[in-house]
């Protein structure tokens, strides 16, 4: 069992290639969906009542007279340079708006992710050590309930509790733009609950399984303190599971972000996407879709990389068979 960094590099390169392929495919599909699939893109964007002048102006603005393939290449090349085009509704460059929205979504996503791990891990360890007792059954049941229902149902529950009954927080999170941190509470809470339930379920199973492993029994028989066994023997294994859970959770978290931003009016990428969809702002839809996908595959790549760093078993020869 010899460590093989060549294998690690190979795996990471393969994953990076897959990530680049994913972004390219999504950009192709999005471009085709908005430019090639509609019989007349001007009708799709402007509606059936558009006048010929409006249509002509729109065709010029969107370069619609250029054939699709050069148009796609031109657009994709612009994206790579960081030129996201101009909104056809507000006539302003999309890039700066995207950057601001991106920052707000990142705060929401990273905050919820960190909080969920902080909340779920201690609970998972506690539940695992008292498996089958009241605390374990209660927390596990709550975790199942939260992870089984759609995010918007959780959001409605949060609103009913904290806005309608307790009146603690504003229901609209638009105030975040003015730096009102109260606006962050409900969206973060909703996302954290969902992510924490997911991390809890995975971490709990992992800790229960690890604690019954022969090497932990050996550590107990050696007379090590429970804390040492937990932190030096059990948790390194649980960490792998948690990072994996976070990675698998990234896609779910993204759809959660889209839902939660729209429920609470939080001005992030998810709300921007829905606003652009409603306004038929095609360049903006394309830009948000590509940026969000890129964000997602980068998160996945980082998680893959961390798992490789955390779990030496994946770095050894013959590890391919285990995955």
């Amino acid at each position, binding site marked *: 069992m010899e460590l093989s960094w060549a294998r690690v590099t190979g795996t990471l390169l393969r994953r990076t290639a*897959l*990530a680049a*392929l*994913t972004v390219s*495919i*999504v950009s192709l*599909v*999005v471009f085709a*969906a*908005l430019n090639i*699939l*509609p019989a007349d893109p001007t009708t*799709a964007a402007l509606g059936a009542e558009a006048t010929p002048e409006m249509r002509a102006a729109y065709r010029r603005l969107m370069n619609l007279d250029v054939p699709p393939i050069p148009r796609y290449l031109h657009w994709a090349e612009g994206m790579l340079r960081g030129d996201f085009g101009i909104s056809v509704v507000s006539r302003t460059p999309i890039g700066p708006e995207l950057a601001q929205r991106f920052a707000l979504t990142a705060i929401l996503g990273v905050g919820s992710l960190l909080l969920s791990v902080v909340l779920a891990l201690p609970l998972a360890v506690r539940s695992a050590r008292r498996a089958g007792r009241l605390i374990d059954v209660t927390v596990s049941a709550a975790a*199942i*309930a939260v*992870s*089984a*229902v*759609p*995010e*918007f*149902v959780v959001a*409605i*529950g949060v*609103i*009913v509790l904290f*806005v*309608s009954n307790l009146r603690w927080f504003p*229901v609209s999170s638009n105030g975040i733009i003015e730096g009102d941190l109260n606006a962050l509470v409900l969206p973060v809470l909703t996302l954290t609950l969902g992510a924490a339930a997911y991390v809890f379920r995975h971490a709990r199973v992992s800790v229960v399984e690890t604690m019954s492993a022969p090497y932990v029994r050996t550590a107990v028989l050696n007379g090590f303190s429970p804390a040492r066994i937990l932190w030096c023997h059990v948790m390194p294994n649980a960490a792998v599971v948690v990072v994996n859970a976070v990675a698998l959770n990234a*896609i779910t978290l*993204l*759809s959660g972000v*889209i*839902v939660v931003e*729209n*429920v609470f009016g939080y001005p992030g990428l998810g709300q921007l*996407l*829905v606003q652009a*969809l409603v306004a*038929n702002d095609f360049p903006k*839809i394309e830009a948000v*879709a590509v940026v*969000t*996908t890129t964000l*997602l*595959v980068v998160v*996945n790549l980082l998680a893959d990389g961390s798992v490789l760093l955390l779990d030496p078993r994946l770095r050894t020869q013959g590890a391919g068979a285990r995955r």
Partner: protein
Amino acid sequence: MPRWPSIAVGGMPGRVGLLLVVVALVVTVTGPFVAPFRHTALVGPILQGPSVTHALGTDQLGRDVLSRVLYGGRSVLLLPACAVALAFGLGGILGLVAGYRGGRLDQLVSRGADILMSIPPLLLVMVLVIPLGTSDVVLIATTGIWFAPRIVRIVRAATASVCTKDYVLAARVRGESTASILWHEVTPNITGTLLAELALRLNYAIIFITTLNFLGLGVQPPSSDWGLMVSEGRAFLGHRPLISIVPALMIGALAIGVNLLSDQIAVYLARNVQQSSRL
């Protein structure tokens, strides 16, 4: 041969799950027959509280909320069920063949599945709705195609592990056809895995499709659909919370019920694997 129905309710979680699913099913199936009003009929003053004629009050257009809840389960059950059936049809066959044959075909199918799985589905559906519209067929097809690669993976792995067993080799030596081996030898032995996965996927499909409906990208007004109803009643949560809460609870009951049934089967499978490895 294990009896899956009795296994699925073999523990407390499974029984609670069955109860929740049955409640949602009964409401959905009998609902339209017992509903006091049509779900689209404007029958009273708007935003009324609960009363004798309108047990759950009326909504922002003066429609009976109870009737809308009773009508609103069909799309929540049928669309995910069709989507999961499509995913299992597509993914199940590909996974069986890839797992049994192995080699180049397996490589091709697995890589394809990897790529499809890395694409964020909600984002894609939101964009595809523009040229394709929001018909039921689009919802079912996109959800089904999104789930298919996951089914491929699981069926492939389960099939590949069953195929190393002696009874499959024996069937091959007897000269049985591939289709016959897959159907008579492999399928019965991966039924448990498939059932647990089926219930879990149904859970995810319910989440996915109700979310699309909630965001206004699926079933359109004036249809009654629990996801759509939650969205429409959202603005009145402080004043008339029942408009949103009741359909939200129905979605919750159905989703949690299906999830618990899936868990119960998975627990049984895990226990059996442990036992057989201990022997």
